[in-house]
């Protein structure tokens, strides 16, 4: 890659992405005009409720949406200066697992039950490094397994012989063995015990530093984000409603009401509170396109124009908020 240095240092740049699922009953609009950018080596958290479109986004980047049902309607996904949409499958094959890899939510089901874990890690090298000798590949597999804390002697065992946390370690080994530039981690700790969660996060942090991959961490757990990420994008109904550094998101006075609601949901042990404060209502029905702001129905600060006009993005020192609340502030300035 000769002109790498001349390129924009954004590794991933997503513009105005629209993704929909065409099911028998209805069209589900999962991602609606999402923008996102990611620098090399950056750790970005994607936060949002179940159904916000986080996983759809990750699958769109890899173009692994369910065939015939999932469809990228419009937009652009630039990866390392190349437009991915419309690229032939052969190009994507070279990308997947080699330059972009993904960790899935449920380690119990994401490993093939009829292949040994060694074979499954080895397969990545087999697919992407045809020049390495068999011994070299085996040696790399052993080293990688050890790195994630699995004794290399167990590589001949099958997934059902491992615990959930260990399976996730194997999945991580698989995702990182090719030293990808970008790791998409889709709720990597949600299905695990709390103590195991911490171990897995620690492992990911260590390996991220070792391989200097950029990480997109998809989660609904703000605690995990605060611990792991540099920047955060809050996603609601298929859009980024707020983006900023971890400090900006947690400490800034100016917040999207949805983010404020999410933070309020975290039980705070320092304050004497009797109840959790959930966000009222449910996620907007993704089968309908909303006219105004997508959060209007659940927003405590909802105004007249929120129901009619879509809000614009407001920026302050790189802190982005998609909300009518800050219209006035900007106009005053």
């Amino acid at each position, binding site marked *: 890659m000769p002109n790498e240095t001349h390129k924009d240092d954004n590794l991933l740049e997503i513009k105005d992405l629209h993704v929909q699922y065409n099911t028998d009953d209805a069209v589900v609009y999962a991602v609606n005009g999402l923008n996102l950018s990611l620098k090399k080596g950056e750790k970005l958290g994607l936060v949002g409720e179940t159904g916000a479109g986080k996983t759809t986004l990750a699958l769109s980047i*890899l173009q692994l949406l369910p065939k015939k049902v999932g469809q990228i309607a419009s937009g652009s996904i630039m990866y390392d200066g190349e437009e991915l949409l419309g690229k032939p499958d052969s190009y994507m094959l070279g990308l997947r697992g080699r330059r972009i890899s993904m960790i899935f939510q449920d380690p119990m089901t994401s490993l093939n039950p*009829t292949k040994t874990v060694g074979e499954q890690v080895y397969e990545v090298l087999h*697919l992407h490094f045809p020049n390495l000798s068999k011994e070299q590949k085996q040696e790399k597999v052993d080293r990688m397994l050890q790195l994630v804390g699995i004794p290399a002697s167990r590589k001949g065992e*099958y997934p*059902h012989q491992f615990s959930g946390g260990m399976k996730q370690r194997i999945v991580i080994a*698989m995702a990182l063995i090719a030293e990808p530039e970008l790791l998409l981690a889709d709720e990597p700790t949600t299905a695990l015990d709390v103590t195991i969660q911490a171990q897995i996060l620690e492992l990911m942090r260590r390996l991220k530093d070792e391989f200097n991959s950029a990480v997109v961490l998809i989660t609904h757990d703000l605690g995990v984000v605060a611990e792991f990420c540099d920047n955060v994008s809050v996603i609601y109904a298929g859009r980024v409603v707020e983006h900023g550094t971890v400090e900006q998101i947690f400490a800034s006075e100016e917040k999207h009401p949805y983010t404020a609601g999410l933070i309020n949901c975290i039980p705070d042990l320092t304050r004497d509170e009797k109840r959790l404060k959930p966000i009222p209502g449910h996620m907007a029905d993704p089968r309908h396109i909303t006219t105004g702001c997508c959060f209007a129905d659940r927003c405590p600060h909802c105004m007249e124009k929120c129901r009619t006009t879509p809000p614009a993005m407001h920026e302050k020192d790189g802190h982005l908020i998609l909300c009518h609340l800050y219209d006035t502030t900007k106009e005053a300035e």
Partner: protein
Amino acid sequence: MSWLKYALKRLLMLIPVILSVTFILFVILSLAPGDVARLVLGQDATPEQVAQLNHEMGLDKPLLVRYVNYMIDALKLDFGTSWISGFEVLPEFAHRLPYTLLVSVLALLFATGIGIPLGIASAIKQYSLLDYGCTFVVMLLFSMPAFWLGTMCQILFCLTLHWLPVSGIRTWKCFILPPMILGANTLASMIRMSRTSMLDVIKMDYIRTARAKGASNHDVILHHAIRNSLIPVVTQIGISFAGTIGGAVVTENIFAIPGIGSMLINAVKGRDVPVVMGTVIFITIIVGVINLVVDLICAIVDPRIDLAS
């Protein structure tokens, strides 16, 4: 060696099954009304002759005694003689078994060899012409009686077109149509089973993981999907085998193959109890052994199955 232990254990478990199956058959077959000795000797026999024969055959003893005697003889590999033709049951069975086994095994090979690839292909190309075609064929085969298909094919290919011999076992050509007829139903269930199973497997998370690793469609199907989708299919083969042996009666009848089936049908019609008894016991043993083999194959295909427990 765990599989050997397992196999031995399963074979031992067959013994009580055989004992009880024999007992049930004994009870059922002793319900046969009418006088057997009279049946054998004909209407002209004197009452003394009938009583004499009844005594010789041990039929005047109570049921339980006869059962125990039968089992003791069976241990000496003596399963009695035919009431009608006078042949010994076991040698006759052993003599006829190869034909039935040949036709049945060919039928299974035909059904699996064609059915599994077709089923997998129609799952991969779901909603294609091939898929609709397969679904249609399955639908037809499932509703078609084997004897009808056999009769019609025999008339078409053997009697009218003269492509194949009508019946008998003279040449290898005699073993083309009968296995296809016998395997037709299994073929349908193989297509359906492997299609459904493949469709289920394709939806699995680990298939998505494999794709995310950069495996091509081809790699994913070949290295990840097929083996997993075969697990329920192998079980189905075992179930189908019992049906195939039952179906052999019809096929052998149509194509005049001198196997177990034609022996059994004659015995049932002539109410030849020792022959029916022996045949059913032997076939139960064979089916039991086949099921054991299928379970062993399952354990090879699916590493999650632990034979030791």
